């Protein structure tokens, strides 16, 4: 079964990582939720709505990081024809789409009490909405072909074409007058946020990340199995 050799090595690595990432999520997420809801003070100006930040911001970080990961694996897939890279992209997309949706919805829930509006068409919100469309478009494109490889390759091109949106999201609050507040963590000069708020934020972010890794591994394993299935079916059909 030489055609499974490379993916088999990948499979062995991720299977070894899985318990660690799952364990990390099982620890970090509950701790994060505790710190966010109980173990941190309300904000001087925003009151308890600041707790929404502890899910909204990490979700936003995930939305952008996952897309960036997909762009990297798409580039690897296109340049080196790496079969596993294609599957990683495909497996990551639904996770990114869900985190983007969480970011948008929790953002609305935070915006209504704080800004007085559920939505505003400023640069930050619009570009994150575009990100959601890119995720959904990718998923639609990859699943629109009977030939799974063709779908994955076309999707890789789409991810790279849309990647210009990620720096736009990141710098939109600097380049334009937006209602959305400017960066207070990922900026030159270090975070301006208080440690009591930074802690739940970082723990949640790490929890989301390890959760992402866990779900990604599960999905990639499923994709590898599906590919084995397709190869076997093809072999049977031509037998």
């Amino acid at each position, binding site marked *: 079964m030489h055609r499974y050799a490379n993916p088999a090595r990948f499979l062995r690595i991720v299977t070894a990582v899985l318990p660690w990432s799952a364990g990390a999520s099982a620890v970090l997420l509950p701790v994060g939720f505790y710190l966010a809801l109980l173990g941190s003070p309300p904000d001087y100006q925003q009151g308890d709505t600041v707790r929404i930040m502890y899910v909204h911001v990490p979700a936003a970080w995930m939305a952008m990081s996952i897309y960036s990961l997909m762009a990297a694996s798409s580039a690897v897939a296109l340049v080196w024809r790496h079969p596993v890279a294609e599957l990683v992209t495909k497996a990551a997309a639904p996770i990114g789409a*869900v985190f983007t949706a969480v970011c948008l919805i929790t953002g609305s*829930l935070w915006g209504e009490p704080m800004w007085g509006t559920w939505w505003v068409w400023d640069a930050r919100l619009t570009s994150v909405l575009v990100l959601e469309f890119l995720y959904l478009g990718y998923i639609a494109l990859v699943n629109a072909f009977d030939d799974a490889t063709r779908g994955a390759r076309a999707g890789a091109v789409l991810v790279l074409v849309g990647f210009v949106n990620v720096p736009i999201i990141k710098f939109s609050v600097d380049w334009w007058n937006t209602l959305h507040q400017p960066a207070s963590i990922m900026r030159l000069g270090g975070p301006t946020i208080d440690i009591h708020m930074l802690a739940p934020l970082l723990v949640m972010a790490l929890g989301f990340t390890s959760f992402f890794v866990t779900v990604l591994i599960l999905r990639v394993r499923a994709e590898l199995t*599906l590919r084995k299935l397709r190869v076997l079916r093809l072999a049977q059909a031509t037998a």
Partner: protein
Amino acid sequence: MTGAGDFWAMGGYAAFVWPAYAITLAALVLLLVTALRAQRQAERALAMLEGARGRRHARASSDKPAGDLA
């Protein structure tokens, strides 16, 4: 915070904070459940296919010479 009531009230913002956390939790659960289901479905399909192939192998090898796809 002075009591359980205050905690649930979230300073008057309960209608915003709790749905936000509920959505987040629901999203995480959804991601995990669909990933596990996808893996289980794929493995089941593969097992069925390999099972059928194994049976066909056994039948075929009794009346066909070697040279099957492996």
